[in-house]
């Protein structure tokens, strides 16, 4: 009985006591979590875009992040000015979207979703191979300052302590919020937004009302290419640009299960829950598990969601009549 009570205390109450005793530290932890949450949300957003338009989980999203960042950095290394390199990279992502539509998707109209998923796995391998061939396997560092993003930090005095805000993190948050707002408006207000949903539901029917599949697919792949580029710049600035970045895309899967595959707000909220949740859990509960909880927290959360709310927080519930 005594043991149980101490156990309950260490697990359920002590962490909150710790939080309350050092509020500035808590704030720092939440901020760190918020920023990684925003970045998870950005990756998840790339998935949502394509999922909305084709009901396909785009396996290649992670490698697109790496690919776009590598193109940008390598162009700069070749002596191209940073701003020009950025514009060219956007062009390259556009070209990639058009190529994917033409070479891969156009042949697969009216095919089962599983076939499209397999196609994106194939695409991942092609992009990875091509990327390693062209850019080599060495990690590169992101040209953060050259792009006009500050690498400094600002201290904020609060609760008798300091909270440190990295400028790059602030920039990431602001850019992510702008992108999210733009995409949300795009989906809810434009005829293309409505058409996207239609395309995801039924190819033939969409064609019959005059929606051009080719155009829609090129648009969403380009948009998710741009999202990938922004993600690549932001993650690259925090660590470096290497093929290991591809792995973070897997965390976005957990985010999507939380938020729902078809929801833009879901991607954001899911991203923030995973980001902030895993940081808090790591810092305050981590020691009880011997640390390293950040690596699996997101997936456990996703599993719990799958059990109780498989469509996610904001996902649409599809009812199928049999």
């Amino acid at each position, binding site marked *: 009985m005594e043991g149980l009570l101490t156990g309950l205390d260490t697990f359920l109450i002590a962490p909150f006591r710790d939080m309350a005793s050092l509020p500035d530290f808590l704030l720092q932890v939440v901020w760190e979590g918020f920023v990684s949450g925003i970045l998870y949300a950005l990756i998840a957003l790339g998935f949502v875009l394509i999922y909305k338009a084709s009901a396909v989980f785009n396996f290649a999203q992670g490698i697109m992040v790496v690919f776009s960042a590598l193109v940008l950095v390598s162009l700069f290394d070749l002596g191209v000015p940073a701003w020009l390199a950025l514009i060219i990279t956007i062009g390259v992502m556009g070209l990639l979207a058009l190529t994917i539509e033409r070479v891969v998707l156009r042949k697969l109209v009216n095919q089962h979703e599983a076939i499209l998923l397999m196609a994106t796995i194939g695409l991942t391998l092609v992009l990875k191979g091509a990327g390693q061939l062209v850019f080599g396997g060495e990690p590169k560092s992101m040209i953060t300052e050259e792009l006009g993003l500050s690498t400094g930090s600002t201290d904020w005095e609060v609760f008798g302590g300091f909270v440190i805000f990295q400028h790059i993190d602030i920039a990431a948050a602001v850019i992510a919020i702008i992108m999210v707002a733009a995409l949300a408006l795009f989906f809810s*207000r434009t005829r293309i937004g*409505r*058409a996207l949903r239609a395309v*995801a539901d039924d190819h033939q*029917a969409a064609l*019959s009302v005059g929606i051009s599949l080719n155009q829609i697919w090129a648009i969403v792949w380009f948009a998710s290419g741009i999202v990938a580029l922004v993600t690549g710049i932001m993650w690259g600035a925090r660590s470096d640009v290497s093929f290991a970045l591809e792995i973070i895309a897997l965390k976005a899967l957990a985010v999507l299960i939380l938020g729902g595959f078809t929801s833009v707000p879901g991607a954001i909220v899911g991203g923030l829950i995973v980001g902030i949740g895993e940081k808090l859990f790591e810092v305050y509960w981590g020691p009880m598990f011997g640390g390293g909880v950040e690596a699996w927290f997101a997936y456990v959360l996703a599993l719990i969601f799958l059990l109780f709310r498989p469509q996610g927080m904001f996902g649409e519930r599809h*009812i199928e*009549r049999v």
Partner: protein
Amino acid sequence: MSANIDIAGMSNSETQTGAQAQADAKEVLLSVDNVTLTFGGVKAISDISFNINKGEIRAIIGPNGAGKTSMLNVINGFYHPQKGRISYKGKTRKRMKPYHAASSGIARTFQNVALFSGMSTLDNIMSGRSLKMKRGLFWQILHVGPARAEEIEHRAHVEKIIDFLEIAHIRKQPVGKLPYGLQKRVELGRAMAMEPELLLLDEPMAGMNLEEKEDMSRFVLDLNSEFGTTIALIEHDMGVVMDLADRVVVLDYGQKIADGTPSEVQSNQRVIDAYLGVAS
């Protein structure tokens, strides 16, 4: 009820009354000339010619596997025939893309209902207006001025269709949840939203009970007489075909075996053989 709705100004073709439609009934809207469609070695359609006059209800009938749906798919550009030509509104094309078919006024429904199941009835029908929305993306995002007015105008049109089809009560429901008969009606609504000149209906009554069939027949007739829409329909229920159609073309094993008014077709020996089998 449906006869009373305001149809003025819905589209130019709709100002035509039933009587006028009869008067220029001889004007050919679509003609199919010597069309052959093969999949690998299998001939789905061989050397078929027929035409559809403006303002008529044209039925395409035939036993299972006769090539009826393939014929519709050729007309609306899903399939490209290996041989033959299709002329629509005087223009002849060898290949037509679904997008061009849709933008030149051909709408259709599908044999197995093809709706956007996650979307509401209203959104499904609105999607039929996608080609009519002209304002730029920028204005749509801002949702002000002309784009807003445009959205309202399309909404109004869609509401008229919802009234016409008597589906106001399911306006906001996701169509995936609706019973089959209503889904078919929503699908017809989406096609109507395109204000088509030629409407292709692939088995609009399949799987319906008698009452639903009567409703659907009434909609098809009203659509034809009030809005002047030319209709080509595939149907298995002979009673329905004989009641609705002005002319009937009969296919069997990808070939045309008869073409004429319902009564002519009904008494044609080849048609009777195709449906009942021939004693050898």
